[in-house]
């Protein structure tokens, strides 16, 4: 078990023929991910080291039946590519692209909900999903993570690697690492991914790494208290961020007095979720909670 991606993943990549797209696609394949195709309009019939390229998602769906799409196209074209993949029946879309306009994300979110409820979107502006030992879809450096019983969900890439590394050094492995992205309208929220981990047999504890802006962490706190039996350890970045300033991620901005790190940490702690004050402390708490039940890499 694991969530979202595993040995059954059949991946096709939009933007596979670009510089970044080809680099990471081949990286994912080297890890063992089954990459079945790519989509680049105008380049149908070509291939990337044997991976066939199609002009459209519909053609890719018909020819190679991908169940997972990865989006690497530039921001101006990303929304349409996501929706095209959904229209072709792809069940999971992982959008790596950074810099998509918020209103495009808003449109994508609402169209998916109404017209393509069978498609789940992770991202955009995210590092992707890694299920150690099974499949890697995205740009997460797999070397830091081994198989285990900790599920990680995060709004930030590098911070996830930092926390994952601390957990690995403490002797723990991960079921899956899910980057939901740092944008204002992500396709999937903490709650969506925590639900998946709750239902996953391999996952025994979850680490969620949030940051300033929006209210996804507060909503996760409510959800954890009401619906989850497995322990969750949280981290929130941005205690020192000033209001009104965007801290790198488009979604990381304190608006007025809402979206502060302190409010998020408080909301989580009020619901009994332990919040580590540093990435290292998150790993310590996770180790403490799991005690002797750490699953070493096979």
């Amino acid at each position, binding site marked *: 078990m694991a969530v979202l991606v595993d040995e059954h993943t059949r991946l096709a990549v939009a933007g596979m023929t670009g510089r970044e797209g080809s680099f990471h696609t081949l990286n994912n394949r080297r890890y063992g991910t089954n990459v079945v195709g790519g989509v680049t309009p105008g380049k149908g019939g070509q291939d990337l080291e044997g991976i066939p390229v199609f002009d459209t998602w519909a053609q890719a769906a018909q020819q190679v039946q991908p169940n997972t799409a990865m989006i690497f196209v530039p921001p101006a074209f990303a929304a349409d590519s996501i929706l095209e993949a959904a229209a072709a029946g792809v069940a999971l879309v992982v959008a790596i692209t950074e810099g998509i306009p918020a209103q495009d994300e808003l449109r994508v979110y*609402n169209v998916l909900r109404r017209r393509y409820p069978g498609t789940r979107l992770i991202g955009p502006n995210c590092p992707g999903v890694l299920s150690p030992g099974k499949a890697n879809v995205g740009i997460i450096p797999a070397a830091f993570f081994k198989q285990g019983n900790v599920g990680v969900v995060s709004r930030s*890439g*590098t911070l996830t690697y930092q926390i994952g590394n601390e957990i690995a050094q403490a002797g723990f492995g991960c079921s899956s690492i899910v980057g939901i992205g740092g944008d204002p309208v992500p396709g999937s929220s903490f709650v969506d991914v925590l639900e998946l981990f709750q239902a996953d047999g391999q996952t025994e504890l979850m680490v969620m790494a949030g940051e300033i802006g929006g209210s996804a962490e507060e909503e996760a706190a409510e959800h954890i208290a009401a619906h989850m039996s497995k322990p969750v350890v949280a981290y929130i970045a941005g205690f020192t961020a000033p209001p009104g300033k965007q801290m790198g991620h488009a979604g990381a901005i304190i608006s007025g007095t809402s979206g502060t*790190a302190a409010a998020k940490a408080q909301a989580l702690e009020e619901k009994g979720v332990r919040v580590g004050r540093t990435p290292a402390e998150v790993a310590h708490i996770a180790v403490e909670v799991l005690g002797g039940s750490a699953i070493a890499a096979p």
Partner: protein
Amino acid sequence: MDLLEYQGKQLFARHGLKVSSGEAVTTVEQAVRAAQRIGYPVVLKAQVLVGGRGKAGGVKLAGGEAQVREHAGNILGMDIRGHVVHRLWIERASDIASEYYAAVLLDRSAKQPLVMFSSEGGVDIEQIAQSHPEKLVREHVDPLAGLSREQAARIAVAGGVDSDVVDGVADALVSLYEVWTAEDATLAEINPLIVTPEREVRALDAKVSLDGNALFRHPENRALADRENEDKIERRAAEEGLQYVKLDGDIGILGNGAGLVMSTLDVVAQAGGSPANFLDAGGGSDAKKVAQAVELILANDAVKAVLFNIFGGITRVDEVARGLIAAFGQIKPSVPFVVRLDGTNDVEGRKLLAEADLPNVYTARTMDEAAKMVVALASGRPVGAAA
């Protein structure tokens, strides 16, 4: 990207929202001539991206030339909560029969646009929400269908507007929603939206924020950034494609990845230090990018020590080390650096750094250790041996 009032009003006018005609000026003489063209009485309004302009004396009524001279002279150059007034907006004074509040924004939680409307215009919206929540109408809009005139009229009625101006207010709301969508705004706010004694509905103020990620669709809006009050280092960083935010402290920070940099600021603060900036180098690791980043950090005179916190994922740590060594060849920093390199090729990176034996550069293994070291160095306390 936040717009000044007069820029917001330009966007409003573009989409059929009524605003008073006026002129933006930068000198007293220009103000006098503009007032003559507009006709008295006029209102002079400081153009700064900060609330509370009226209370600070940045909004004044003038009945004649002498008053325009006096007020323009006072307001131009005035410092309103750290924002220096370089520009005035002068418009014909409006008679006000009633004032409302109207806004369209993105409700991140509901993943829908939200229209907010209140009969308590002219007051801070967070105040209205606290003191008169029943007077704040909040209604979501289906983003795929847009705001219909019917829904806009319902909002106006729910907000308690006089029946003879329901149509006018509804039109204004539809236009405001159009500003929000067509210009890729994240916020479009009018406070107050007024009704004149002649029963005309007009935007007396404008607060608009545009989505920086959507500027490729609106090249004409790129020029609207408030360059005059923008921090010089932040502007330079933006030109170089680096994410830099100036803060008040004395410890310069560089990291890779927005989340890790935010986390680094927090860990430094927990160690008793005060960060001078947020700087995300992203995947940039070549010597040129690192040198640019170092120069940006040191352009802030307050910086007494610098922390480099790199966790290599896709970015290779040895490349960052090479970049840092090359950067030190170009610039000779006068403040100590603490460098924490971890992740992909970290052993190689740390070895390179040790061999280069850079003056006044210390290495740390963990984030917590690095934070403690840099805080000590910034306050002039010694730490362990240099790298």
